[in-house]
């Protein structure tokens, strides 16, 4: 009889644990390459966030969307940064998240696949404070209408009322280092196979932003493009140079803007 009670209790406990686990969102940071201890002024910071795909069948921790193109894209970009500007950049990237105040030591942060991001109230508050204190967020690699809505679901947690605006060519962010009036859509690596510059229904590149009370861009939104892939595949002979070049120029301008405004 006692053996039966113990078995029943064990089964109930196991079912409870599995249920709780199933309801939890993905919290696996995925692949973690060795990080650098080199001290430099600028550290390329990639935002690791909790994905809202945890319950949607993409796996429980197997697929962390924040790490798309990571770390090759980051490191290739840092090579360009150190070569083309006077910014002293750390040769390797820094992964930051919103679960600690460490992000405040990195006033510029890059995030991809932001249609999958998901914040707790505390995380949204921390990101809001980060941006209003002087931090800068660049988001990339999300495409089409559905991704936009999912991205905005997270963004509205951070800034419920701040408008998103389409950037004009005259905006300072397109001239701080390179004059970039002739921007075009930068596709991901899939262009090599498909010849398409767009993904999903994101046919036109959207250069958007959210500003602070002083009119300074605090969130630079690269919608319907995949700059990270362009950096990652820049050394692939099949990936067109003009896309990689455009991606580097955009990234460098955005960093330069983030370090001057």
């Amino acid at each position: 009889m006692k053996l039966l009670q113990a078995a029943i209790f064990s089964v109930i406990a196991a079912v409870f644990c599995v249920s709780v686990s199933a309801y939890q969102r993905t919290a696996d940071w995925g692949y973690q390459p060795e990080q650098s201890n080199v001290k430099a002024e600028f550290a390329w910071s990639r935002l690791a966030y909790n994905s809202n795909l945890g319950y949607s069948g993409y796996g429980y921790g197997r697929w962390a969307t924040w790490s798309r193109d990571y770390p090759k894209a980051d490191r290739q970009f840092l090579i360009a940064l150190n070569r083309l500007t006077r910014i002293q950049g750390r040769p390797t990237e820094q992964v930051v998240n919103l679960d600690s105040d460490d992000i405040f030591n990195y006033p510029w942060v890059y995030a991809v696949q932001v249609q999958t991001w998901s914040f707790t109230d505390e995380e949204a508050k921390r990101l809001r404070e980060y941006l209003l204190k002087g931090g800068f967020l660049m988001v990339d690699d999300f495409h089409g209408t559905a991704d936009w809505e999912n991205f905005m679901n997270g963004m509205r947690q951070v800034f419920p009322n701040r408008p998103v605006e389409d950037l004009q060519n005259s905006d300072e962010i397109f001239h701080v280092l390179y004059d970039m009036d002739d921007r075009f859509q930068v596709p991901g690596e899939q262009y090599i196979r498909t010849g398409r510059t767009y993904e999903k229904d994101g046919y036109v590149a959207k250069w958007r932003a959210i500003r602070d009370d002083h009119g300074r861009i605090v969130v630079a939104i690269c919608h319907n493009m995949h700059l990270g892939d362009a950096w990652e595949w820049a050394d692939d002979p099949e990936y067109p140079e003009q896309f990689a070049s455009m991606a580097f120029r955009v990234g460098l301008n955005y960093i330069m803007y983030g370090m001057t405004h």
Partner: protein
Amino acid sequence: MFEFFFKYPWPVFTKGKLVLLGSWPVWVLLLLIVVSVAGLGWLIWRSLPEAAPKMQTWRAGVVWALQSLLVTLVLVLLWQPAITVAQLKSQQNMIAVLVDDSRSMAIADSGRDGKTARETAAVQTLNAGILSGLQKRFQTRVYRLDGGITRVGSVDGMQATAAATHINDGLKQFAAETADLPVGAVVLLSDGSDNTGGIDVETIGALRNRRLPVHTIGFGKERALRDVEVDEVSVASRALADSRMKATVSFEQRGYAGGKTTLVVKDGDKALASKEVTLDADGVVQTETVFFNAGTAGVKRVQFLLQPMASEENIANNATTRLVSVSGDKRRILYVEGEPRWEYKFIRRAADDDHSVQIVSMLRTTENKIYRQGISDPSELADGFPVKAEDLFKYDGIIIGSVEAGYFTPRQQELLREFVDKRGGGLLFLGGRFSLADGGWGASSDSELIPTFLPNGKNTFHRDPATAQLTPAGTESTVTRLVDDSAKNVERWKKLPYMMDYQEAGNPKPGATVLAEMNAGRARLPLLVTQNYGRGRTALMATSGTWRWQMSQALGDPTHDMFWQQLLRWVAADSPGPVQASMPVLRLMDDGHARLTAMVRDKEYTVAPDAKVVAHVNGPEGGSAMVDMAPVPNDPGSFQAEWTAEKPGSYLVEVTATRGSNELGRDVVTFERTDGVAENFRTEQNRELLEKLSSQTGGKYWKAEELARLPKEISYSEAGISVRDTKELWDMPIVFLLLLGLMAGEWMLRRKWGVI
């Protein structure tokens, strides 16, 4: 008593001259004295072996001294000593009686009861026999003394209502107006509260030339029993809008040692700051520092008030005011940065929130690209760092970021030096990879601009954390004041987040001030150091990691921005324009005479003696005037004008300098004339001034119990119409007493020693 022994009153001896009426020469007297004294000594010395043993000691010397004195006295009397003294001729001289009728004379702290008004006590004193005593021997004239002197028929009916006391001006006026009158002496009845700061040498000289003694009679308590009085307030007369200002208030008290009161700074009815103070010991000058915000642009009349204590005798001296001209101008600072870095961004953001400072920056983004921000037009800094003085001197301050000294040409380095030395600008060096010693600044021609002796060699910049803390000098500085309360400010600094990096800046130079230090590992290094250089000032901030103060503190925490705004204002706020107007005194007390000076320079800040300089004065009630300012001889570029502010109130003077049709620049200075306010301060009797005036003119400070002798003794004066009288001294009682005393003294000593 004196006269009983000496036959004549004291003034005979102080004013008279000793003479010997005897016909024999004085040298004979001296010779006889010497011979007599020596002879007595020889005689005593010879008889010593036969004298009693007791007399063979020091006692023989005493006897010799007494006998010598006796012989000397007799010899002097034989030469008929006398004193010649000048004495006013009766009924042929005038005695002037000056009675202070300023408002401080209305204070009721005189008389036998200590509750009679000073003015009343003065009148009572005169009517108690002084005036009639004088009138028996002299003609008398009575004058009212306040801003000047006015003759009155009688002392009765005098009212202490005048707004000011100018004893100096009054005496000067009196000396001038009575130059041809036989004035024998002046009697001044006053509390000595002179609003112009004392009696000048010129006035004393005029009185002494006429040998005119001023006899003074003081009224009022020399020490208040219960009073708190503001002595002085030191505060800048100019400020930028919303600046944090520092005022040093000096005050003293009597009767409230250990008590507490509140020091309040007010602009009209609006309290700008307050501070509780504990009062020091009686009569000790106490100094307190208070910080306040200058507020919006405009001329402010800032009041500094010590809240009255219970039962205070005089509360009108608890407050004073100062005019502060708050400028709404935007000071432009050129920030040269050699590499993109976070410090650059966050300094710019701090300046963005400051309406009084604008940063114009040039940032080297790549080896060959410069990114400019804050420029007024596309041509500004288009060719990089200015190479002409007139282009660089447009800025009020300069920040040198992470830039090597070699980035600047020798001419540009010289311009940097001239910017501080000649133009009077502020220069701030920041720490960084290419800054200070690592940037080769220690070996550059501009090394003297840096307020520390930079270390030799490189690798002084470290990307390791360091924490900041204030030095004693930093606790009193407006640059580092984050919280009004001094102690809390020190704690606030200690709690600041660590900085991302630091740089070794070496030791401070003599004359430099270390406002903040940093703890880096076990080392304590200078963080913020300032110094004056030439007409300007320089500073270094040995880090580029203060941006963590912004990112690592709570959203809305003002620390980072406040510190940088204050440091940027320090860099730029005091940089003068080409025209610099000033006045030696910005608060005219009961006197409208104003002296305005202006230093005029051209766009390269070279003095411009050929300029035409005009001052436009706007006064109260819409009054205005144009005053031409004249060049000051032997001081090129300096101009001066004298002007009189007729009415009390605030005045604004705009000085404009032109050369041909070109305007060189303009400046504004504000001042105020206050009437009647000075009378509220220093209300205790200034006996020191009265005594000094008397002694310097040959008069006397009279105490109440001595006044009966005044009519008689005042006659010993060389002024007016006087005769010299010779008064023999041989028959003074003191002489006979002395002769008897010497002989009796010797006899008594001998008896005591048993040698008679």
